[in-house]
């Protein structure tokens, strides 16, 4: 029988090893990637497809259209830190393009904010 997971308190989840997917690596070139940075697959074929795990194929699939880091994490139901490592690998291999929010919205323009205000009112 496997021992029961160790609990911290009722709020903390069980102690887990979510980094099994990343072969234990907790850091990558994507450590500082913003939560709402936009990720787009560039459509290149990986040099060695065996380097790409199933979760990374899913990321390439999802990001055929620009998708934010949080939406990727939510879609894959993986913790943000894990997703960042997977994204870092894809970035190192030149398979994705990452656009930080500063470029997406260099201080959002007045026009965008007015659009947001009207959109919220219309909800």
């Amino acid at each position, binding site marked *: 029988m496997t021992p029961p997971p160790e609990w*911290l308190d009722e*709020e*903390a*989840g*069980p*102690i*887990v*090893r*979510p*980094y099994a997917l990343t*072969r*234990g*690596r*907790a*850091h990558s070139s994507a450590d500082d990637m*913003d*939560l*709402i940075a*936009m990720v787009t697959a560039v459509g290149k074929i990986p040099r060695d497809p065996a380097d790409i795990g199933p979760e990374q194929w899913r990321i390439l699939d999802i990001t055929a259209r*620009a998708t*934010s880091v*949080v*939406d990727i*994490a*939510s879609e894959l*139901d*993986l*913790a*943000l*830190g894990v997703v960042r490592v997977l994204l870092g690998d894809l970035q190192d291999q030149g398979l994705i393009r990452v*656009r930080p*929010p*500063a*470029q*997406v*919205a*260099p*201080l*959002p*323009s*007045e026009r*965008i*904010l*007015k*659009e*947001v*205000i009207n*959109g*919220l*009112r219309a*909800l």
Partner: protein
Amino acid sequence: MAFAPSDEPVALKILVAGGFGVGKTTLVGAISEIRPLRTEEVLSDRGVGVDDVGGVETKTTTTVAMDFGRITIREGLVVYLFGTPGQERFWFMWDELSYGALGAVVIADTRRLTDCFPSIDYFEQRGTPFIVAVNCFDGAERYEPDDVRIALDLDPEVPVLLCDVRRRASAKVVLVTLVEHALKTLTAAQR
């Protein structure tokens, strides 16, 4: 102005902060579909060094679920809402959450007004535009927004409003007030 072509998606980030149990999750849920977002709290980061067992780092973490909501204004324009965890042990996430944020809603409960001081201090120091939304709990004494403003020692330009975070219409007014305030701050800075 923006160099991004108009078909590049634009994402904006709004934070929902405030003390423990003040109604952050309720507000995000009232106005958007809450989606799961998991992040980890690092319990210990024993980086064992690159040359140890094939560069395997051990990181003992516990998964924390965060409030994360998404409002699609239109195709290519999305507002993300992040509930900033109230407990002090989650403060490590605040810098990341507030980086590049359009603004923040600080929810206050008049029965425990001082609980929102840390949030207010934080956004004041970072220069993040914020508003204070006073969540009117049943049975709590009603205060006028101006009383709250004085009690919290807020700058006159910071909007303060009463709300009921359980009601969608009220949550909408809260967000509109914040974005209008952010817009005002932005245009004032450009002058």
